């Protein structure tokens, strides 16, 4: 009697576990719930720049993207047709709307559109550069002691000169940040007026090696000084410039280093030995996105919180993708030759080994 009761109990227990499990499986099958989104990269087209003889000319205006691959600049339509491919004379200022291919001693600058047609030429003796949006054009003195902003019609808007050599420059929206060899940082507005000047302190030798201004214009950052070298972030509140973070670094660079805020200004990326340092602005924590060799390409897929790096070591270029908290997502050795990477609205434009590729990135 007692043995039978025990058997019944066991049977009851088995049924008690199996039924709920079966129910859960059934619910999952019948009503699937997403556990998270995955990114998919989809190659859209590739152009072999070594084989293209005659660039495609379309009478209809197409949306184009500019690129520089080694000593060549060009434009590709988003549908994968090459619009222009041109050898760089000495340097090139490039935006999606046009370019200036300039000589070593430029007496005048010639602005051309993505089809290579002359738009305008203006008398300027410095070296030109567009900002990231491509809407603003700066001309740097050839002795690196000043710069001016000119309109695309060639009219000078403002100029500024410094009692030192410019080491670093970044323009974002209506703010321009200039780093100097004397350790000074100057933040100027779109009319050329100096909003703030500061010299990050705490280093034996003051010098600015890299600088970045955030997209909101509310934060600026610099890699500065020697002995020790520091990553410094300043917060701008009205007329006040307040140091928000100052982190001692292990590096002792004596050249310009890459430094850039993330799109949301929450992170600061900067070159460090062995990789790209990531400073979390709110917490002050630092991480490293490991990388070998020299950084040759950087882009951030802002909404998707992914960072793509191209580094080169001994002629070998490697593309790495990181989620921005530091996990390596993928690593790919690129074909030999110059490389380029930039963001597109739908993904990225990647150039390597004489090829140009559009890769769309989507979540699904």
């Amino acid at each position: 009697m007692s043995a039978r009761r025990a058997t019944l109990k066991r049977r009851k227990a088995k049924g008690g576990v199996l039924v709920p499990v079966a129910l859960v499986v059934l619910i999952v099958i019948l009503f699937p719930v997403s556990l998270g989104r995955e990114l998919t990269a989809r190659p859209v087209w590739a152009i072999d720049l070594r084989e293209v003889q005659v660039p495609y000319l379309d009478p209809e205006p197409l949306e184009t993207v500019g690129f520089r691959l080694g000593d060549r600049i060009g434009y590709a339509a988003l549908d994968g047709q090459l619009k222009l491919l041109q050898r760089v004379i000495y340097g090139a200022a490039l935006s999606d709307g046009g370019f200036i291919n300039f000589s070593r001693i430029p007496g005048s600058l010639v602005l051309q559109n993505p089809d290579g047609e002359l738009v305008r030429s203006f008398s300027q003796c410095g070296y030109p550069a567009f900002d990231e949006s491509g809407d603003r054009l700066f001309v740097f003195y050839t002795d690196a002691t000043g710069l001016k902003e000119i309109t695309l019609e060639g009219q000078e808007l403002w100029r500024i000169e410094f009692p030192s050599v410019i080491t670093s420059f970044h323009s974002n929206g209506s703010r321009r940040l200039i780093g100097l060899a004397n350790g000074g940082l100057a933040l100027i507005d779109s009319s050329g007026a100096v909003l703030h000047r500061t010299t990050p302190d705490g280093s034996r030798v003051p010098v600015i090696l890299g600088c970045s201004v955030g997209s909101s214009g509310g934060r600026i950052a610099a890699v500065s000084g020697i002995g020790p070298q520091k990553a410094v972030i300043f917060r701008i509140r009205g007329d006040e410039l307040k140091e928000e973070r100052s982190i001692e670094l292990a590096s002792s660079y004596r050249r310009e280093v890459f430094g850039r805020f993330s799109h949301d200004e929450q992170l600061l990326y900067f070159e460090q030995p062995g990789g790209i340092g990531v400073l979390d602005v709110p917490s002050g924590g630092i991480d490293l996105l490991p990388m070998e060799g020299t950084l040759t390409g950087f882009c951030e897929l802002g909404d998707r919180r992914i960072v793509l790096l191209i580094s080169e070591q001994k002629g070998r270029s490697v593309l790495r993708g990181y989620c921005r908290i530091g996990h390596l997502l993928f690593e790919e050795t690129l074909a030999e030759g110059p490389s380029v990477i930039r963001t597109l609205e739908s993904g990225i434009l990647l150039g390597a080994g004489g090829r140009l590729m559009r890769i769309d990135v989507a979540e699904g």
Partner: protein
Amino acid sequence: MRTPFRCLSSWRRLALRPVPRRLLVAFLASAVLLPAASFNWPVPQPRLVSTFADNSIDHFQPGIELGGRQPVYPAAEGEIVFTCREGEGYSSFPRGIGSAVVLQHEGGIQSVYAHLETESMRVDDPLVRTPAEGDPPLAFSGDTGAAVGQGLLFMLIDLEEGEFLNPIKHDKPLLYPPLESGKSNRGPVVGRLFLKRGGILEELTDGSRAAAGEGELLAEIYALSTFSAFLRKTAPYRIYLAKNGQAAASIAFESLREQDGRLVVADSSLGFADLFEDAWLYRLGSIALVEGKIELQIKAESHDGSESERIIDLTVASE
């Protein structure tokens, strides 16, 4: 064969025209004799092709240019604080200085060496000493960046005062040994003189007549650099104007200081646009011409101490 310039021998192979050893010895010896507060020339054969505050088309050039391909040595003991190599590494903007080195010296002075030959740069050791025999150069002067021919752009910066210093001040040169009088220049030349009134330039010549009234006095003043395949105009060191024996204007290019976002001549607060009417026409200020005889004296002094003057007698009559 044993040579006292063992380290330099490999550099020689790179050189198109090797520097004569006797010049190099004299140059290195000068570094030993260097007065404490001075700097030595950064190249063994300083051939001045452009002077301080030269007209760079739209701004003052805040340094001097020394022509030819030569080894470049630190102007004094110091520390490398910044380097850039043309076409290499990350650069956030296009650099007209090409490959360059910035040194920090005691006393808050920085020296800048630009247009260097990239492949010859030896900047691994950040600490540099006053060059001694056998020391390798920082690099060779080259033509990287916006260089017109081979040469070195050399700048001195006073960090405390926030100004570019003229390394070849005539009366208190910062580079040792000073330029020998008349050796580096032909000139200076005081050329044509103009009066600008209502946007019109009226040339003033000796014995000429001018209408009474106020106008802006413009003068063509320059020296000619003697080192170059072709003659190059260089800026004078000092310009002096007197009217009827009374000082009316004086400009000395001792340093360029930043003022409201512009580099100005420190002793006059004149910016580039205030001083230059065009490529080599200096604005000397406004002058009032009253009826009668007027004597205008314009004196120019070049960096090596040579000077010249021009005196013009004018007869001023009412309109």
